[in-house]
């Protein structure tokens, strides 16, 4: 028991190099920038009183819910601009904690104002990653912070391990949970679900073209089995340095497939988030690395 406690303390509390977290920060910031720039032409409809107001809680006079009254267009643009500033701060690693906090507050606000009807698994994962990375010190390398502080964007300082470990656990648990579900859910017992994924409202023009090839059902059955095997294997192999590159490649191929078929490109974020499984010391050039205590340059 004592050994287990010691191992878990070391796993979560040891100081580590920040490189894996920095890679995740940049990937998350880039994803959020692209994701939210898509809404720039629609700020009026989604976030201002010019569109349909569908807040999570109907505003009641005299209560905090009045904050969910859709604002005038100018205010909506100002809030949207603040969100972009926060996301850019995260991406560049400048004023990181404040930028993360601003982003989180505005994501909650815009989520309750309009996006609650579009809150799917990926939205939850994105938000969770933003919160955990916001507390992680992911700006302690590959950032403007380190550039201004040490004159080099690759300078680095140690960080706590727990945010990286939690994100790794979450990614593994997501695959594990999805794999378990797909094993038992009635709708996942044949390839029909994937056949319809090529022709539904999310399907891309390329997916429709592939559907017109009229492939036999055993192809879709095979794909369904492949997806189940992948989701069963990833939660284990992602942790194993020996098999990691294969796990990364298989995970990337799966998410590229989802993007090509259903246009859900935002799940691609999970691929750079695999950095959570990588010993951050591997990002530091051999022979040029510094001990994990104190400040160093990679």
């Amino acid at each position, binding site marked *: 028991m004592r050994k287990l406690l010691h191992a878990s*303390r070391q796993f*979560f*509390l040891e100081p580590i190099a920040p490189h894996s977290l920095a890679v995740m920060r940049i990937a998350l910031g880039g994803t959020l920038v692209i994701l939210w720039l*898509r*809404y720039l*032409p*629609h700020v009026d*409809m*989604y976030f201002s009183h010019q*569109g*349909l*107001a*569908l807040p*999570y809680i*109907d505003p009641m006079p005299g209560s905090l819910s009045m904050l969910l009254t859709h604002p005038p267009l100018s205010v909506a643009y100002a809030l949207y601009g603040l969100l972009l500033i926060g996301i850019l701060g995260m991406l560049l690693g400048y004023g990181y904690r404040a930028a993360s906090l601003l982003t989180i507050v505005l994501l909650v606000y815009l989520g309750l104002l309009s996006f*609650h*009807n*579009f*809150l*799917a*698994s*990926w939205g*939850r*994962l994105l938000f*969770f990653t933003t919160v955990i990375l916001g507390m992680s010190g992911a700006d302690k390398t590959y950032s403007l912070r380190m550039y201004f502080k040490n004159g080099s964007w690759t300078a680095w300082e140690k960080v*706590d391990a*727990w945010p990286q*470990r*939690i994100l790794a*656990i*979450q990614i593994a*648990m*997501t695959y*594990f*949970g*999805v794999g*378990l*579900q797909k094993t*038992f*859910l009635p*709708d996942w017992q044949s390839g*029909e*679900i994937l056949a*319809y*994924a*090529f*022709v*539904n*409202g*999310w*399907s891309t023009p390329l997916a*429709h073209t592939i*559907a*017109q090839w*009229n492939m036999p059902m055993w192809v879709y059955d095979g794909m369904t089995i492949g997806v189940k095997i992948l989701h069963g294997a990833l939660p284990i192999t992602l942790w194993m340095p020996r098999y990691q590159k294969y796990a990364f490649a298989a995970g990337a191929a799966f998410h590229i497939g989802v993007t090509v078929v*259903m*246009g859900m490109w935002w799940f691609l974020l999970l691929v750079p988030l695999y950095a959570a499984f990588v010993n951050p010391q591997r990002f530091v050039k051999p022979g040029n690395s510094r001990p994990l205590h104190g400040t160093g340059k990679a």
Partner: protein
Amino acid sequence: MRIRDYGISLGVALYIFLTLNGLAYTVAQRSLLPRRAVRFFYGMLAPYQSYGTNNVELVAEGKTKDGSWETIDLLPYFPGSTGERTFRELLLSRRAQGETATAQGYAGLAEQIRIKEMDRGRSYSEVRLHIDTWPMAPDGYEVLRLPVFTKAIDPVSLE
């Protein structure tokens, strides 16, 4: 250990507890905590559980002065991809709260559409909503949206 380390350990333990509850809910639809408490964590483990064989799209009609019903173009109100539009039109978070909340949501939506259309110079005494449903097809999203294949269903019950 320092106090800060105890705090982090407690936070990590809480996260693991919530995630395991989410996993239990994923597998057995049961957990030690109420569903509301684990919904967020369960939600991170639960994409793409089922599928339909029909496309769906919300349709609004406005009653004109002469008593006839005119179809209102909802695209400007629901911009973005078809998939995202469908999610929003189904009022998913209201639907999760039950039939009454969903019905109230659609009633409020119909009234808002009436007011917005009036602002744009199109006056209707009433706006009614239904959902068009038609079979999916390899040839394209709208290909089978023909009168013979298309059914109008109630947006609340989806029947």
